[in-house]
């Protein structure tokens, strides 16, 4: 084989990171990592019991019973969880940093959620949005900076 200058970079992720984050934007966007009690994933009208390792797609609705909670990791390394009696839809998720395409749109219709931002929150915070029936939330910058708008 001809000798050519080659270099390689390798990284290992401990916990869950989906491979192919630019190539395969149509399929898996995340995975269920933590689960307590009863929880389901609804996809195209089909209700699937959630399990640790369940792969998630855009449009999935995550639901928990009154004894349930569920935590997921998305492909941009952000983490998201819902508490008991909750319902949440991942309305959009695009993570193609090479093409500059980043988007996260989540709607919580009842219950509780927590979110820890990942690369989308770092690269393009304005691309991450959270809706509820009463208010919407956007990420504004990533530093201590108080700016109050009323």
């Amino acid at each position, binding site marked *: 084989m001809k000798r050519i*200058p080659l270099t390689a*970079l*390798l990284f290992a992720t401990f916990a869950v990171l989906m491979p192919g984050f630019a190539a395969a934007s149509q399929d898996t966007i995340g995975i269920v990592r933590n*689960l307590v009690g009863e929880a389901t994933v609804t996809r195209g009208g089909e209700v699937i019991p959630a399990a640790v390792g369940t792969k998630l797609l855009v449009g999935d609705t995550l639901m928990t019973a009154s004894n349930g909670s569920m935590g997921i*990791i998305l492909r941009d*390394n952000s983490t998201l969880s819902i508490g008991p009696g909750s319902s949440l839809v991942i309305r959009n998720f695009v993570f193609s940093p090479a093409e500059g395409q980043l988007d996260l749109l989540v709607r919580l219709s009842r219950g509780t959620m927590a979110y820890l931002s990942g*690369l989308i929150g770092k690269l393009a915070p304005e691309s991450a949005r959270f809706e509820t029936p009463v208010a919407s939330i956007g990420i504004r910058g990533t530093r201590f900076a*108080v700016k109050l708008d009323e």
Partner: protein
Amino acid sequence: MSKSVASCFAILLLATACASTQKPPPRGAFILLLPDDQGKTGSIAVSSSGGEQVLSAPRQAVRVSAGTPPGKPFDIPEEEVRAQAGPALDALPKPPVRFILYFKHDSDELTRESLARLPEMMRTIRERAPVDLSVVGHTDTVGDKPYNYQLSLKRARAVAALLATKGVDSSLFDITSHGKDNPLVPTGDQVSEPRNR
């Protein structure tokens, strides 16, 4: 994308005050900003009914009643955080940890600096058990595509094999090669990019 992924993470916690039955819409929301594991706090904007409030200090919260603008932000004590959102916070997975390793030129042998990180990697794997591992090979865009693909795959396998000799269960590995098609730092073809090595 820089190889440094250290950043200031925003945690936001959102609780809708839900009625006991499932049908009626939530009457209000309680939104809370928290620091990340490193103690850093991001910033979020809460908007409703034409009004907006920005939260940017740890344990700052805001209440919103349906059909009204958000109220003024206020600070809440640690115990109140647990009371409002304990189960959801307990369910939040730890963010993945990423190690970037480098190799000697045209070889599947790690550089001395990268090899020296092995104990740290093993410690992380033990601390975070049970774990899933992704070993992803990348290259820069210099050189032949199939050769780069094979080389980065060989390197990914070498790392997996190294970890396996230290007792990591090999069924945990997901090994992929991105070759030159998906460099960590995007460049044109035949560009020698140090951050992709």
